């Protein structure tokens, strides 16, 4: 009996004439991620990608684990592919469901008949299937409201498909379908979550990090690299730009008023990130800022930061509470890494009393006390690039 993984699209299904471009991208992403799981055949019909293992040793469980992280997928169904003949469906389908059905107490059936030429009508299919399951598994009871499992039978164009577990996908859009953006990755809890959320909207996310040795340790860098690795199952390949930031921070400390340290530092980071955007064609920046979390994330501070950027700055966690951000961080497994206690460049030279309501004219004046341009140029030149593969 042939097993297939049926991958149902989310939003893509609603697209119009350009739907196939999104589908192509999704399938390309899936193929790339499933390469290490063995050989599969891919086909698509009726808003579904069919993934058929081509050999015995193809790792279906591993493939499903990976699919769960890929954006653009609404649901994943591991199914038996059956001939469109009722007796065959029962004969082959009942034993296939044994693993799941032997461990539960209640079930319901959900039949879909997209092939209207199939001789039985949907209500008949539901009734017959329910009866077949009850006689094959007499310990079960029907519960249409709160079943332990739902057995799904789909009569489609070429075959019938039966399964008893529909796994939720990540939703969203295929990574790459919305263009390229650059994430300011600090090492805290918020920025990896921001990356995840924008990748979910189809952005291809790369990351930039600012490093200030000896104020920050090599471990802080290792931590950020680990975060990149943890993001790849969701974001795909990540290019990582590491900016040497010590000189700039020291110049900032020596030449600007203390209360503006953080806000000017944020602006200088934006300026460097903008240079990378220009050179490497990123269309937006992503940060993990959330309103009111720290002094540099007040409305007025954010406005000052924004003024330093030519490209739009996306802040997907802007309206989220820490608790909500942590919840996502735990789900995508970046939390434990993020809370490793290494100093990052944002906490070096933290002013005792930072300006919480900075005005752009004052900030620009404070910034003008020193010509940062040559140092910014130098920092961009000395960037170290590392690639993280999904």
């Amino acid at each position, binding site marked *: 009996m042939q097993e297939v993984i049926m991958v149902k699209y989310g939003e893509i299904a609603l697209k119009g004439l350009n739907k196939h471009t999104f589908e192509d991208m999704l399938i390309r992403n899936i193929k790339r991620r499933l390469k290490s799981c063995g050989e599969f055949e891919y086909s698509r019909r009726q808003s579904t990608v069919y993934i058929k293992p081509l050999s015995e040793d193809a790792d279906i469980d591993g493939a499903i684990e990976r699919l769960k992280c890929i954006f653009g997928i609404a649901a994943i169904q591991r199914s038996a592919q059956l001939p469109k003949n009722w007796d065959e469906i029962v004969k082959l389908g009942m034993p296939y469901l044994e693993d799941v059905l032997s461990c539960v107490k209640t079930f319901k059936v959900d039949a879909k008949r997209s092939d209207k030429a199939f001789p039985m009508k949907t209500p008949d299919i539901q009734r017959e299937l329910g009866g077949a399951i009850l006689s094959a598994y007499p310990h079960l009871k029907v519960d249409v409201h709160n079943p332990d499992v739902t057995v799904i039978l789909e009569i489609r164009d070429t075959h019938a498909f039966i399964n008893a577990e529909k796994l939720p996908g990540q939703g969203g859009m295929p990574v790459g379908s919305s263009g390229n953006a650059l994430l300011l990755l600090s090492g805290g809890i918020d920025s990896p979550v921001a990356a995840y959320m924008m990748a979910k909207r189809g952005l291809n996310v790369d990351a930039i990090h600012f490093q200030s*040795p*000896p*104020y920050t340790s090599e471990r802080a860098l290792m931590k950020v690299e680990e975060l990149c690795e943890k993001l790849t199952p969701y974001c795909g390949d990540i290019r990582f730009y590491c900016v040497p930031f010590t000189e700039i921070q020291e110049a900032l400390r020596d030449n600007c008023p203390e209360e503006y340290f953080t806000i000017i530092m944020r602006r200088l980071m934006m300026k460097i990130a903008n240079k990378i955007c220009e050179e490497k064609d990123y269309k937006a920046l992503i940060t993990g800022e959330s309103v009111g979390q720290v002094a540099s994330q007040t409305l007025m501070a954010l406005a000052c930061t924004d003024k330093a950027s030519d490209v739009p700055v996306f802040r997907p966690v802007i309206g989220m509470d820490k608790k909500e951000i942590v919840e996502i961080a735990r789900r995508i497994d970046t939390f434990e890494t993020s809370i490793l*206690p290494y*100093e990052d460049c944002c906490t070096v030279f933290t002013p005792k009393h930072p300006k919480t309501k900075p005005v752009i004219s004052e900030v620009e004046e404070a910034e003008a006390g020193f010509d940062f341009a040559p140092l910014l140029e130098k920092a961009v030149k000395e960037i170290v690039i590392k690639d993280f593969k999904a």
Partner: protein
Amino acid sequence: MIYLDNSATTRPCDEAVKAACENMKNNFGNPSSLHKAGIEAEKVIKSAKKTILAKLGLEGEIYFTSGATESNNTVILGTAKAYKHNGKKIVTTSTEHPSVSAPIDKLCEQGYTAVRLSPKDYDDFEKAVIDAVDSDTFLVSVMWVNNETGFITDTAKIYNGVKRKNPKTIVHVDAVQGFCKAPPKTLKADFISLSAHKIHGIKGIGGLFVAKNMRFEPLLYGGGQQKNLRSGTEAVDLIAGFEAAVKYYPDCTEKYARLNEILQERLSALEGITINSYNNTKNILNFSVKGVRSEIMLHFLEESEIYVSSGSACSKGKTSGVLSAFGVTDENADSAIRASFCPETTEEDIIALADGIKKGIERFRR
């Protein structure tokens, strides 16, 4: 590389590496096997036990563990079970290593109480420990030498005093930092925890000294090795390395005293240095550099390949409870540096460190 973080770990000495390799290649039998290969492996363990006991100068049994963390856990949790009718109180210090304080915390969750004394509160710390013992005290656990400051506790004095007061009270000493370094006459206990990698042995092997007639419930159950008290095939190669390290470690009392003096002298020429160590073994010197956070100084020194420790002072930005128990202020704890020496440390190393600190102050102090 100038390695001055020998309280964290040491470079395995050539003798230890050689002994371990030799065993891996030519003596790889399982000490529990009945045949000759097994017997030869067992001989290595027997010999190591003798060497360690001789170094301790005490009579009893040595068990090998995965390290001092396991030894400490075994004693604290294992004696609580074996002597559950001897009382529910533990007397200890607020300067213990987490592998002692954490299992004690666990016992406190189960109805035990712990009295934790700080050296800064007493002129005669040993007497304070003895005074805290009462008829309900089943365990006294004190470290011999503190890992952050080098503070020495005379555990022999404590042992004798405790036993006079309540003979049933067990005395445990975490001797990891003192072994081979502190004066042996200040060590006496029912249970003693040891670690090989602090004395130029290899990581992953530790020892537990158990005095005669002392009992404990094992932490691990299994094949019944080591008299059924520590199951698991003995790490013969590491044990051989442990023995070699004990034999190697020379008496450095005078050398450490000289190095310590030189460092203090050099540092005293700089402004804003506070020495945090007192009553200490001279292989450790803890000091604070006013106005420069430990971590920054540490990474700065690292750039010239000088390795020290921030004295585990400000992990996660919190100031060390241990240093404050020695009377160090929060501000000083935040800028504390620990230098710790080994038999190979030279005067030049110490001078390089002092120079590095000087440069660090020039660059970072505001």
